[in-house]
């Protein structure tokens, strides 16, 4: 039991940090917020060449054969750097979805393109209700000849505008079982993309489907939803790892600033009230990070991780939110002016909090699982 990254993972982490320091900084992040594409294609090419897109894809499909715990370690650094790119959308969400649902043929076809970065795939799941529960999938799929036509609105779809293929969750009837995942070329008739104005300016899109034709169903026509739960779990853990990395950066910024900034003749970091704020932040981050690692570990080795995943996402989101809020407070004026590094993290934290399940939603799951497990102890 070591509870931390293996030696190989430590190398991955170190390499990632070094690379990211050369290609991204707060000014670039801010520039990309206003950019139409939202990321630097040259950097994206390097990211793909480093094998990050294919990190979790088995070697037989052109990937690196790593697991979700490797990806989590990598995303601590990605989250820390705020790298703008479709890596999470394509390399995590889409890759996991294709792996979990695709037929052998689909995997052979799609995964190598995704891994090499030749293509970008994007999953379109959430809708205006913003939930990750099955009832939130209201987009309808109707048979049309041999194929399907989709109608509905998908919301919060990151980097949909650069997707070569959308993987759209839609239902052909009542019940969770009637949800399937459809491959849709975003350029066909009946697909309309509009950028969503978000606090994180992170290129989420509104995807309006008006009888858009699907190329195919990814995997089975029924039962996809239950297999997809594993995708949500793994994606949530990877995103939680990104939150940990970002939260660590917030803490660093706060600590550094508080050591330099002098007020009333003393560095503000010597005031006990601020010291305790930062002490609480490091406490929360340290705890949440271990939760994320445990969830990643259990998912990687195939153990039941429902409880651990819910705990990880809730703890990591809360830790990041608090780290960003306290970080801004400690920066005072320098924390709420556009252009400050701190302000970036504050805004991005909100997106990280709500994606893949709000902490509130995961906490409900924690208790539901506890209630399921709770049995009177034998010696009571």
């Amino acid at each position, binding site marked *: 039991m070591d509870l931390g990254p293996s030696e190989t993972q430590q190398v991955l982490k170190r390499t990632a940090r070094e690379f990211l320091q050369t290609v991204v900084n707060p000014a670039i992040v801010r520039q990309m917020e206003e950019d139409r594409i939202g990321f630097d294609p040259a950097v994206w090419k390097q990211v793909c060449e480093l094998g990050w897109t294919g990190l979790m894809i088995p070697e037989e499909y052109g990937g690196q054969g790593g697991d979700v715990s490797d990806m989590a370690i990598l995303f601590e650094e990605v989250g820390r750097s705020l790298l703008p790119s479709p890596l999470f959308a394509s390399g995590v969400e889409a890759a996991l979805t294709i792996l979990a649902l695709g037929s052998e043929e689909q995997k052979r076809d799609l995964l190598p393109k995704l891994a090499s970065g030749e293509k970008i795939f994007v999953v379109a799941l959430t809708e205006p209700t913003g939930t990750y529960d099955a009832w939130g999938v209201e987009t309808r799929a109707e048979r049309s000849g041999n194929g399907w036509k989709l109608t509905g609105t998908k919301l919060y779809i990151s980097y949909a505008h650069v997707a070569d293929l959308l993987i759209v969750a839609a239902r052909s009837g009542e019940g969770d079982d009637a949800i399937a995942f459809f491959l849709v070329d975003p350029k066909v008739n009946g697909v309309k993309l509009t950028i969503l104005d978000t606090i994180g300016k992170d290129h989420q899109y509104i995807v309006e489907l008006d009888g858009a034709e699907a190329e195919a169903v990814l995997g089975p026509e029924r039962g996809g939803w239950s297999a997809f739960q594993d995708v949500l779990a793994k994606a949530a853990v990877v995103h939680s790892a990104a939150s940990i990395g970002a939260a660590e950066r917030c803490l660093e910024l706060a600590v550094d600033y508080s050591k330099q900034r002098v007020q*009333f003749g003393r560095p503000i970091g010597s005031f006990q009230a601020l010291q305790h704020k930062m002490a609480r932040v490091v406490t929360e981050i340290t705890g949440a990070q271990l939760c994320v690692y445990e969830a990643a570990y259990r998912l990687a080795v195939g153990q039941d991780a429902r409880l651990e995943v819910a705990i990880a996402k809730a703890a990591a989101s809360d830790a990041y939110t608090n780290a960003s809020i306290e970080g801004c407070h400690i920066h005072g004026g320098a924390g709420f*002016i556009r252009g400050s590094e701190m302000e970036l993290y504050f805004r991005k934290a909100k997106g990280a909090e709500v994606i893949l399940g709000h902490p509130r939603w995961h906490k409900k799951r924690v208790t539901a699982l506890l209630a399921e497990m709770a049995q009177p102890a034998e010696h009571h």
Partner: protein
Amino acid sequence: MDFTFPEAAEKFRLEVREFLKRELTPEIRDEYAHCTDYPHGFNKAFTRKLGQKGWLTLTWPKEYGGMGMDVWHRLVFDEEMAAAHAPVAAHQVAANFVGPALIHYGTEEQKKKYLPPIARGESTWSVGMTEANAGTDLASIETRAVRDGDEWVINGNKMYTEHLQDSDYYWVLVRTDPSAERHRGISIMVLDMKTPGIQMLPLWTMDGYRVNQVYFEDVRVPADAVLGELNRGFYHLAMTLNTMRSAGLGGWTETRRDLEDLVLYAKETKVNGRPLIEDDWVQNGLAEFMIHNQISRLLAYRVASMLENGGPAPDRETAVRQVWTKTYGQLHVKFACDVIGMGSQVGHYSPKFAPLAARWERRYMGSIAGAHNGGTPENALNTVALRVLGLPR
């Protein structure tokens, strides 16, 4: 024990409400909601209308353009303005901070010159206190004014000044005796914004309003630019800060409106068929929001009642009110965002998908600045600890 407004004030409330209904056009309201440069709307024409009514300076003595009315009228006016989201940036600083301070320590000449235009809503002021290296530690300001014949020559900088780009006058804290101990040797000066040598660099806050970084390069002002006593500025300032801290007494109504809208939202929004408001945590959070808002209201009334009885604003209530504002405000913004969930990240350029017109997205971004405006949350807690409880330094 009494918790009701005097009858005259309640009557005045109807008059104000009637006026706002008529004069606060949808255009002005829209400007308030979406304007990107001012947090609280800036409309000179509207301000002038209020000035014509005498409502900007209800409690001032009549000789300086005031109405000589009681504090309850002022409070009623503030409550109605805030509840209606009426623009105040064009007069707020002049009428509520600078004016009362001038009445206190200005020369008769200065009062005659500056006060009546403020009362008429015709002059806009900004206040410049903090600097890059000063923060809330105002005794450490570095901007200097050096006497040169009949004039003062100012060099230095100020940070985070609101709407200076539209102001007629700039009230600034400057060091006039660098040899004195840090609290002494500071004076207050007024700068006509037409004076050469004032440079502005705009900054924007996270939630999109403009604050200015200001640089003074050999700015020459006449000797009578000094407000109050020379080198006693820091002591006059305490008075100004006190006025500031007991101002905004009507502001709770804006929050109440936010809360009521959130209650409606929670009633009407369903999660998997069930109204949000049936969730126990939503109920609990809304209640705590309401309790805190109620307390803001009562603390405001309490401060007003002490002022009306001729005393200074009471230390305990004034200080405690700062703590409420600065520490609980953030909690409720976070709570409202939690209630809204995924949609709380959506801004007003996507109106179709932005719940409650993206108000909480903007409030979330404004919550840090809100807590730091006029002193950090820690300053507020320190004040309570040291001044109210008398704890040792």
